[in-house]
């Protein structure tokens, strides 16, 4: 059906161009301005349609069907292995190759991150189980690479401010991942002291909120939101790609602290926390 539609478009474009050129040639022979207008119009529009003809598209439902099992497997694997810790997106400083992106899920809750040398041992493995935690390739890796390609630069050379400014344009216009993306950076300067009291400016935690309107994978996002039973919030490909971008731009580990979607699934909100220290 899709192939038939494409060949129909090709036939229409060829017919318009042929008729247009024929009309222009006839208008010259008979000095007819009406034929010249018709010919130029047909030739112009034929050329325009040829230039803006559709790219290769895949049905959204197929994409979701293909993607859904791999995300479910990822979440089930974390639950099966009983990893209690948070999923942390590691920044480039943890890897020998700066382009590498991994998620670290610790075995115990509130466990600290391992040293970069420890992580580098397992860098080239897609999934690595250590005694302390699990190292995974995030679901948004390829999408973050597409975003980097669209930006023409790596997230590593960007800072949070430029990411906040530049990412929505490429997200909306170039890749058409969603209809809108709003990124808000919040510096939460209140932090608990060791004695339990709160003190401003003791430590600066940065929280980032991303509001995604009508994303392409809204069903996947909803499924991810429902299937997250462990503490490890890995996210869907879109929220994961944003987490990778933040981790690379900030150069610090990042956690997804909250994922929620509206009732109709059109608005998705994800909160990220940059881990200082």
């Amino acid at each position, binding site marked *: 059906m899709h192939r038939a539609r494409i060949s129909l478009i090709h036939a229409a474009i060829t017919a318009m161009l042929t008729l247009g050129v024929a009309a222009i040639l006839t208008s010259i022979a008979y000095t007819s*301005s009406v034929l*010249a207008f018709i010919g*130029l*119009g047909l030739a112009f529009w034929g050329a325009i349609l040829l230039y*803006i003809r559709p790219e290769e598209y895949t049905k959204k439902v197929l994409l979701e069907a293909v993607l859904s099992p791999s995300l479910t497997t990822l979440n089930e694997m974390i639950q099966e292995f009983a990893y209690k810790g948070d999923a942390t997106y590691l920044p480039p400083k943890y890897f020998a190759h700066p382009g590498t992106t991994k998620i670290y899920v610790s075995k115990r809750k509130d466990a600290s991150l391992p040293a970069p040398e420890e992580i580098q041992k397992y860098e080239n493995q897609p999934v690595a189980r250590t005694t302390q935690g699990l190292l995974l390739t995030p679901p948004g890796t390829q999408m973050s690479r597409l975003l980097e390609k669209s930006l023409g630069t790596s997230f590593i050379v960007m800072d949070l401010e430029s990411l906040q400014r530049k990412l929505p344009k490429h997200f909306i*216009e*170039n890749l058409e991942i969603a*209809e809108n993306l709003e990124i808000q950076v919040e510096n939460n300067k209140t932090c608990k002291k060791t004695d339990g009291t709160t003190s401003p400016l003791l430590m600066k935690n940065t929280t980032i909120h991303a509001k995604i309107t*009508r994303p392409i994978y809204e069903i996947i996002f909803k499924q991810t939101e429902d299937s997250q039973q462990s503490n490890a919030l890995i996210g869907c490909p879109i929220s994961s790609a944003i987490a990778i971008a933040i981790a690379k731009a900030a150069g610090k580990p990042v956690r997804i602290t909250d994922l929620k979607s509206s009732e109709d699934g059109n608005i998705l909100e994800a909160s990220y926390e940059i881990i200082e220290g």
Partner: protein
Amino acid sequence: MNFPLSFWDISLLLAVTAIILLITSELVSPYYGKTNLIINKKRLRNIALAFSIVFLITVAIRIFDIITST
């Protein structure tokens, strides 16, 4: 055996085409939520801008003609 349209006829055709393309490009922009139209929207925007610029060049030529003829 001459081409029957003058420079100004072509300019008019360019103006009409540019307006149609610019309006279409704006309406199918991802910001308006019309993302279900399967065309290369970036190329559509570029071609709309190209047509508009060519039309403006014809207008500039016309203005230059008026100034130099007086």
